[in-house]
């Protein structure tokens, strides 16, 4: 059939990209100038605008470099404003500015999208929110990973010092399930207009789900979350930040019992934490408010074993989102790597502004 793409030509171009060291291990899409132009046409920002500069590495990423990497990641051109907003959102995170991308934790960006753009781009918000199978969900976070690698040179074993890293590090992106959430969308909670297209993003370390289909009692459910959040294993500071991606069933159960999002946060702030004896058993009683601390305190420095340390300092440390299917009561607890900016970034809408000037 005339016009069918030639797989051998495609293979040659893909292998060329491998040879240049441009891939994250999976094949990338080879990018032509005309393809790049399509991406750049999706934003009003100049191709030469510097998105971020890492002075210590002497490297920077421009809008054009971001577009090339988004295209290589498999994004469609219309995803590009989301990629830009995701980058801007994660770079509001203090840890991302402060070398977090090169941390031994190998933190993963968690990208949450709000607004009607979810349906327009086919961004999955429901079943399998963490599980892949949808082009924007898979390629938007991958674009960030490729930007880090190709623009800043942060690649494994050298400038990327990740010890083990987080499974699916460059694949955590979903739309909030606003339609089945009993609460206001995350971006609205963060102060944007209701219905705004927006991205919220923070660096995260570790994900663990809470499967609780066993109780009708909202406090039982909250205790189950508190137990998962209060683990000692992930603890490197006493003050921590842990969020929940609630499945619709859990969120609706809590909301039906009268819990607003803020009430859930307050309950968790009060109950998440450990007594000193537990921290001592894990060798973590010397962990301080803001630092790694050292070894266990000596006998004469020890505080009583029943003294309780709360882990979550305030509502800003407990991001809450709703995503996933309505088919089972399974939610996800995640750890924020540093401190989430508690803000959402509006997604630029070039197409609609073009349409408006044309009177469409």
């Amino acid at each position, binding site marked *: 059939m005339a016009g069918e793409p030639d797989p051998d030509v495609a293979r040659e171009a893909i292998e060329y990209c491998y040879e240049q060291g441009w891939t994250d291990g999976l094949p990338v899409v080879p990018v032509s100038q005309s393809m790049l132009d399509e991406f750049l046409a999706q934003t009003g920002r100049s191709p030469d605008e510097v998105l971020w500069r890492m002075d210590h590495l*002497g490297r920077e990423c421009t809008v054009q470099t971001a577009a090339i990497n988004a295209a290589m990641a498999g994004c469609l051109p219309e995803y590009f404003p989301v990629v830009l907003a995701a980058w801007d959102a994660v770079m509001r995170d203090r840890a991302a500015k402060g070398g977090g991308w090169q941390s031994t934790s190998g933190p993963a960006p968690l990208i949450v999208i709000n607004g009607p753009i979810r349906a327009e781009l086919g961004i999955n918000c429901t079943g399998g929110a963490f599980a892949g199978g949808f082009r924007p969900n898979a390629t938007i976070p991958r674009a960030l990973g490729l930007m880090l690698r190709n623009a800043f040179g942060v690649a494994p074993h050298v*400038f990327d*010092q990740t010890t083990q890293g987080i499974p699916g590090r460059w694949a955590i992106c979903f739309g909030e399930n606003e339609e089945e959430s009993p609460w206001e969308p995350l971006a609205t909670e963060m102060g944007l207009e209701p219905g705004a297209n927006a991205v919220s993003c923070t660096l995260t370390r570790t994900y663990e789900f809470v499967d609780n289909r066993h109780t009708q009692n909202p406090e039982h459910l909250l205790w189950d979350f508190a137990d998962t959040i209060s683990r000692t294993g992930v603890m490197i500071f006493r003050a921590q930040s842990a969020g929940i991606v609630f499945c619709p069933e859990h969120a609706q159960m809590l909301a039906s019992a009268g819990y607003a999002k803020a009430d859930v946060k307050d309950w968790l702030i009060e109950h998440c934490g450990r007594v000193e004896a537990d921290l001592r058993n894990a060798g973590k009683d010397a962990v301080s408010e803001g630092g790694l601390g050292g*070894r266990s305190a000596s006998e004469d420095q020890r505080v009583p074993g029943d003294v309780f340390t709360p882990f979550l300092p305030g509502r800003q440390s407990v991001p809450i989102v709703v995503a996933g299917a309505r088919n089972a009561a399974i939610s996800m607890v995640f750890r924020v790597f540093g401190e989430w900016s508690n803000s959402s970034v509006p997604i630029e809408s070039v197409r609609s502004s073009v349409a408006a000037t044309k009177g469409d």
Partner: protein
Amino acid sequence: MICSDAFRATGDAMAEIQGAPGYRYLTTPHPVAGLTPDQVRERAEAVAAEVMSLLTAGAP
């Protein structure tokens, strides 16, 4: 500069990117984070002679 030996690859690459390939620095065995004050003192003693020779050596 002294770092633990697990960070040698990154240290060498940083030196190169900063325009100082082959920059000489010292290492101590990894890990360091969990050492007691006495163990840190032992590490310091073990590396002291190298610190002295690095500081007093001429440029390579």
